[in-house]
């Protein structure tokens, strides 16, 4: 009996040895780096990121990849390079603060080729454990199956925060959007549901309820939110939004506001008040400063030129003229009063449109997206990310992180060392999440695609990722509990001239 077990053990060992890839003894060197997907060559990753699974896009019949870190080597066979979780963690631990060198060997017919190695820099700056995002097919008008998900960045674990499938939405449908958190934590967070059972699901100090943020004095319910990091107020834009479609341009969709203003909401007093609502201005995308005493927002000045046609028709014709600047108003948390309007960055003077400002947790940098026109840059191929130094007013494009395709929906990690954004660079239409390391001088390293368990995951995944946010903890309320809140009554907020 013992012999039999012995043989079985021996056979198992032989099988393991036989399956273990070994480096080719002889190979001819190729001068260039191998084609791989996702593009993980020469990137900087956090020391706690999940394994970077990629596939080798070179023709061949056998593949071996070697990862070399100080005092650690890992050899993986196959076209799909898929390190195990343990191996990967050991590799990152060994390379923390230095680099992993990756070399790919490809056997084509009988000859092995060794491609030029590339490196992966392992930053000791760890990244927040979680991110959340909305998954939505990159449709234009229709929506069916929408969900907000949270993902553990150290593993591949993904779970649903809320799904619109949890309420009976036929035939009207239910859209969900604009999830946001206060200081990357989930005890104070929100997301909107639209159409059927619409309202804002607002979690205040751990308790969820549904709000109706629309008042007689505001043009819509709250849309783009920004939690004040220090005080108990939330800024929103209120928007009348429409969509029109390009007949041949690859941008395809133009999202426009017919009207938009900025409001703030006080969750304690259940009141909202205006911050910016000039008639000829389209104000949108509020963002609080790190100290909570200044509110930034975008504004496009558009005066009506032709009263014989509908305003929205004029906007469609003049869509290239809609250019947003970044403005700000100081805020006194004691009195609730807002100061005069300051222009922080006049993008329109450069013939550009700057949107979606996000201030770094340290308060020094502002990250925003800029393109030739419009507010919804995720549909603009020329949209790139820029960083404005709020102290020196220096403006830098994030050259290493940007691409010729849209970049937008950016967020800072709680440490300010990492940014997360959506880009359509992979196939030009589906927005995917990219992470880039931010250096102390406000520059970014080359961005890398959010890793998945399989290299081909994105090939067939038919949703776009949008509004990604970093989180330091998971959402504590279950999707089914959120569904009950959505099915419940809305609480109507009141309008007040002063938010205090």
């Amino acid at each position, binding site marked *: 009996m013992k012999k039999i077990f012995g043989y079985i053990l021996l056979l198992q060992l032989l099988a393991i040895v036989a399956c273990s890839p070994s480096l080719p003894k002889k190979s001819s060197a190729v001068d260039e780096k191998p084609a791989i997907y996702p593009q993980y060559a020469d990137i900087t990753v956090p020391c706690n990121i999940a394994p970077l699974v990629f596939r080798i896009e070179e023709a061949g019949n056998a593949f071996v990849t070697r990862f070399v870190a100080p005092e650690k080597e890992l050899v993986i066979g196959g076209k799909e390079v898929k390190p195990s979780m343990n191996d990967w963690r050991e590799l990152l631990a060994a390379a923390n603060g230095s680099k992993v060198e990756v070399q790919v060997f490809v056997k084509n017919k009988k000859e092995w080729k060794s491609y030029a190695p590339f490196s992966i820099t392992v930053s000791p700056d760890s990244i927040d454990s979680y991110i959340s995002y909305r998954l939505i*097919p*990159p*449709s*234009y*008008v*229709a*929506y*069916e*199956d929408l*969900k907000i998900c949270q993902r553990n960045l150290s593993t591949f674990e993904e779970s*649903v925060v809320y*799904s619109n*499938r*949890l*309420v*009976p939405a*036929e*035939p009207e449908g239910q859209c969900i959007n604009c999830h946001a958190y206060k200081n990357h934590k989930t005890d104070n967070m929100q997301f909107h549901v639209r159409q059927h059972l619409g309202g804002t699901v607002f979690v205040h100090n751990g308790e969820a309820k549904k709000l109706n943020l629309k008042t007689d004095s505001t043009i819509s319910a709250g849309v783009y939110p920004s939690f004040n990091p220090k005080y108990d107020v939330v800024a929103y834009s209120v928007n009348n939004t429409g*969509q*029109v*479609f*390009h*007949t*041949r*341009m*690859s941008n*395809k969709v*133009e999202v426009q506001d017919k009207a938009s203003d900025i409001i703030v909401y006080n969750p304690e007093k259940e009141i909202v008040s205006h911050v910016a609502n000039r008639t000829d201005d389209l104000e949108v995308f509020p963002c609080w400063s790190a100290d909570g005493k200044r509110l930034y927002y975008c504004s496009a000045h558009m005066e009506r030129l032709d009263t014989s046609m509908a305003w929205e028709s004029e906007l*469609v014709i003049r*869509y290239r003229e809609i250019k947003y600047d970044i403005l700000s108003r100081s805020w006194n948390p004691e009195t609730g009063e807002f100061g005069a309007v300051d222009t922080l960055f006049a993008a329109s003077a450069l013939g550009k449109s700057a949107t979606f400002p996000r201030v770094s947790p340290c308060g020094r940098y502002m990250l925003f997206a800029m393109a030739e026109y419009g507010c919804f840059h995720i549909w603009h191929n020329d949209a790139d990310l820029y960083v404005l130094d709020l102290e020196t007013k220096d403006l830098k494009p994030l050259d290493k992180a940007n691409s010729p395709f849209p970049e937008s929906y950016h967020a800072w990690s709680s440490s300010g060392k990492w940014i997360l954004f959506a880009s359509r660079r992979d*196939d*030009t*239409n*589906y927005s995917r999440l990219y992470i880039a390391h931010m250096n102390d001088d406000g520059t970014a390293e080359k961005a890398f695609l959010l890793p998945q368990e*399989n290299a*081909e*995951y994105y*090939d*067939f*995944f*038919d949703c776009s990722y949008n509004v990604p946010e970093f989180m330091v903890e998971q959402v504590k309320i279950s*999707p*089914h509990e959120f*569904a009950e809140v959505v099915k419940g009554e809305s609480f109507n907020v009141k309008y007040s001239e002063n938010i205090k």
Partner: protein
Amino acid sequence: MGKNVKGGNKQVKAASSNTLLGNFDKLVKVLPLLFFVGLWAVLATYESAFLFRVNELSSFIFDDLFFENMMSKPAGLLYYVSSFLVQFFYYPALGAAIYVALLYLVYLLVIKVFDLSQNYRLLALVPVVALVASNMQLGYWIFYLKQPGYFYMALVATLLLLLALLLYKRLNEPLRIVFVIIWCVVGYPLFGAYALVSALVLGLYSLVTAVAGRKKLLMPLLTLLVAVVAVCAVPQVYYHFYTSVCSEYLYGAGLPVTQWASSYVAKVEHDTKSYWYNIYVYWVPFVVLMLSFVGLCVCMLFRARLREDSKAKYLVAASVVLYAVLFLWVYWYNDNNFRIENKQNKAMWECRWRDVADYAKDAQIPTRQVVMNKNIALFKLGVAGAEMFSYPDGSSDILAPMSVHLSQTGGKMTYYQYGKFNYSYRWCMEDAVEYGWRYEYLKHAARSMLLAGEYRLAQRYVDILKRTIFYRAWAKEIENYIKNPDLIEKTNEFAMPLQLFCYPDELSVDDSFVEAFLTKNFKYVPEGVTPLYLEVALTSAMIRKDQKAFWYIFERYLNECQPTKLPKNYQEALILFLNLDKGNTVSVGPAFVDKFVSKSVQRRLESFVAKTKNYKGMKEAEMAPYFKDYDDTYFYFYFFIRKIRTN
């Protein structure tokens, strides 16, 4: 002698009875075979375009994510298996053979499970007919159903129920309780509502077999009770593990409950009357299917008595035949326009343009989709100006309870052919969101983005199609164009859309009204467009009966295309509009008319005008039947084809 005679009579009676019995035996053997063979023949020939479209509007991708998506909701395995089977309708004869073979299996299993004797085996056709009706009733629902693999779902679920019953029969009572619980717990995520219904059938089966066998009823009653409790409780438990289904739809998982509800079609108004407009009609085959199993269970109670009653078998056989004929007659959606649209669609993918146009001749009053497909075909054939208005025209009411828009049916093809690639792609995306990615959408998305020059995006859809059985070759053809873009312009199939892709970009919306958008869009003719673009614009003005636009485009057509002779329909429009204008805005001399309008066309208009004088005081709709001899002219279209509802 007398004895002999008496005995002889007995023999005659016995012989007669034997013959009748013998014939009956043969009949009950032959009839089902005839039914299945006939069904296959009808599906494979008469309904082949429909089956092909059913396949085109489904998808099965060999990919883990595809599987995971299906399995993320209750009835996931049923969706997956059914989607796999639907793809074989790519070859309608093959798909129909598989479909009919599985129906035949249902028939055999019903006989086996319910121990139907030779005399009553026709009863096994009852659920089969309900299954066929549940599919053949669909019509335009194939575009709107949000259930991948709908065509096979009820059939596969029925097969599973019968296999479960077969196993169940061999179990004793305590084990049957365990089986019912396991069936519900395991079956619900895999088969959804079908698992719940079949659990009830299992419970009922226990009870009726016990009653029929005069056994104790305690355990069967307990089994039925457990089944009822499990059916109520299991979905509630699973609810907490799913984020893809709400509590309100838990018990309908796998059924089109969210669509076949009155709220879905509440806003649709129809000019005509038809039972197809009643949303609840579509549930009847499912109810009949369920009741057929209840009925088969109940029949087991009377089996002993029925065996003694020789007349009952004739009554049962005749009833089943009558039911099958009537039910299928009523539930076989047989709308001619729908059939033509599907035939045209298949022919369009196969570039059989003459067929596309010819199919339109079979329509009495066509739907706009039929007309638009025909128009595309005529442009492809280069005879639009000569033939466009010599086919049946109009805008027939669509025989469906919901609002049917071209954007969901043939809009993607129409936009693609007219060079509106972004719009074709847009509707692929919009509909993929609502109904899931289907082969048809994937093909349109790949092809539109190929011609728009967005090769990376086209490659994405090519990569997905390469993971299918029947569209791999098509995908590789498109991939070849992506790798060799120079070939695109040399390909005849792409000539028309590329020639029409010659307009500057603009922002617009179509509100899902494809024809209205196109005819409006072609009203504005940018500088430097192709001759084909001008012709499309000209015919759009003619369809809209827009004289002002006609004159503007016609002038450009004359200047830019410099035709020596006008196609027949253009001649008719020209002479008609000149007559109507009476020189108010357009002034041309007789030489111009004689140069561009043939004498025969001029005489035809004269005779047309003369004839109208005979019917003074009548409305156009009343006059139209008397002018059938002019129905190949633009005059007829202009005066008698009214109220075109572009959708």
